């Protein structure tokens, strides 16, 4: 018992734990729709594309991490809408459009960060997250965004399910399918930014994709899939943080390794 309680003495650990659990739940819920719609690449692209926003925020508000967070969120929203519009209007295939925007934005981010003195250490933070440095203000933001995303996904559950399963049918039912598409992009953008805070650019895709993939293997129906994704996501966040505390490994990596472990363990039980 003291094994579980000991780290809770530290405020930074408690904040990290709550942030990880909230982000895990949001990622698991939105990620389920992401993998069913085949939007995995878009999730990865968004995680990388926020880098220039992070860099600008970093330069403008030195040391203020919450401000950086808002810049990241703004960039994610702008990028997701840019990708959504390019995919609709252009003749280019959507994944190619995503690739162009994603790589360009990431390069811009690196260029901006490298122009600032002492960038190397901070770049590592952005790439791999700095979960143990979540401030109380950060925590409220992460909690609010995560719960908001989950609430919206639950409220529009049947519409999201329908649009994901059969977009043409959704159109014949006169559902606002375009608005739903942008809504899902918005949810993904917000979710990715919260995940970014927890595991960083490089690993946020895993939080979005791996627990839902595990749920998909084990569940027969969508509600079960999302529930299992949440269970595995939250469990990975929880156990991952303790592992990180006791073994001294990076928390983001511990969380993702656990999620990957659950996925591999579930492979023999798929239905």
């Amino acid at each position, binding site marked *: 018992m003291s094994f579980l309680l000991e780290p809770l003495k530290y405020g930074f650990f408690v904040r990290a734990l709550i942030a990880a659990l909230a982000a895990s739940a949001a990622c698991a819920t939105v990620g389920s729709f992401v993998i069913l719609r085949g939007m995995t690449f878009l999730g990865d692209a968004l995680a990388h594309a926020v880098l220039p926003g992070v860099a600008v925020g970093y330069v403008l508000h030195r040391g203020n991490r919450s401000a950086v967070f808002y810049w990241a969120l703004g960039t994610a929203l702008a990028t997701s809408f840019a990708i959504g519009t390019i995919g609709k209007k252009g003749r280019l295939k959507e994944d190619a459009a995503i690739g162009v925007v994603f790589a360009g934005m990431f390069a811009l981010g690196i260029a901006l960060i490298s122009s600032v003195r002492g960038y190397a250490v901070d770049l590592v933070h952005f790439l791999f997250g700095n979960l143990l440095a979540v401030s109380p203000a950060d925590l409220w933001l992460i909690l609010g965004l995560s719960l908001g995303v989950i609430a919206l996904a639950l409220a529009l559950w049947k519409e999201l399910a329908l649009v994901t399963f059969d977009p*043409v049918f959704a159109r014949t039912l006169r559902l606002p399918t375009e608005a739903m598409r942008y809504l899902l992009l918005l949810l993904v953008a917000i979710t990715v930014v919260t995940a970014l805070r927890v595991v960083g650019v490089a690993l946020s895709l895993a939080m979005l994709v791996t627990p839902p993939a595990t749920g998909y293997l084990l569940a027969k*129906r969508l509600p079960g899939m999302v529930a299992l994704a949440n269970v595995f996501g939250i469990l990975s966040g929880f156990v991952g943080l303790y592992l990180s505390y006791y073994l001294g490994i990076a928390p983001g990596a511990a969380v993702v390794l656990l999620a990957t472990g659950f996925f591999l363990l579930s492979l023999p039980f798929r239905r």
Partner: protein
Amino acid sequence: MRRSCLCDSHPPELPAVEVRDLRVDGDDAPILSGVSFSLAQGEALAVVGPNGAGKTTLIMALAGLIKPSSGEIRVFGEPPGKHLCLGYLPQRSEAEWNFPATVRDVVLMGRVGQSGLFRRLGRADCQKAEEALSRVGLSHLADRRIRELSGGERQRMLIARALAQEAKILLLDEPLAGLDAPAQEEILNLLRDLSHQGLSVLVSIHELDLVVNYFDRALLLRNRPIALGKPQEVLTPENLRAAYGKALHLIHTSEGTLALGEACCPGERRELSPRAP
């Protein structure tokens, strides 16, 4: 957001679908022009013609998914796109067949249009879905995962979804493609039963030999209407030659005239229609 389907209140003599001088332009030439017909309530109409004749375009225009260049479409007297009582089954469903859902889940999705945003589906919706499942004979598969269905079962599930939607008009774009003969007949029997129950059914179909037995009327298309009427009167050698052109080969045998056409894919021939001499 709540929209109800008021199809039950339509006077029975009002046509389910009325098309007047429909024209849909393609990149260079019109895909469809001069198409006029009406579909009565409870009528089963087959739309036939070679590939590229505009069958899919016609059905999509009726479903309100593409805009006609000119002409008029009326669904129970109103423009298309206003009605929920129109069930559309596309040729290649873009549905995600690996989606984790049971047959019942998919049929219940037919209720989403009747319900409003943010609302949960209720007991009445579930009841409608169960009724729809039993009308297409899929009640025993209600808990089956959709990816485990055969092609015919899949079509019947999508028809059930349209029934749960309370569709009064069914638009099916080549529902028989890729099905074996027993499954094809099962679908056609189901559609005929539904039309006898008062639904209007419009089906694009390549299997000309099946049109006579299962449909009240046929519309033969080749970018414009070639013939419209009773299947026996429409599917004559002259009309077929006008529609299919070089893709059609009429062979006179002792048992009658055999029409062979390249209906599906280049290089693949299939029997179109055996006819009495």
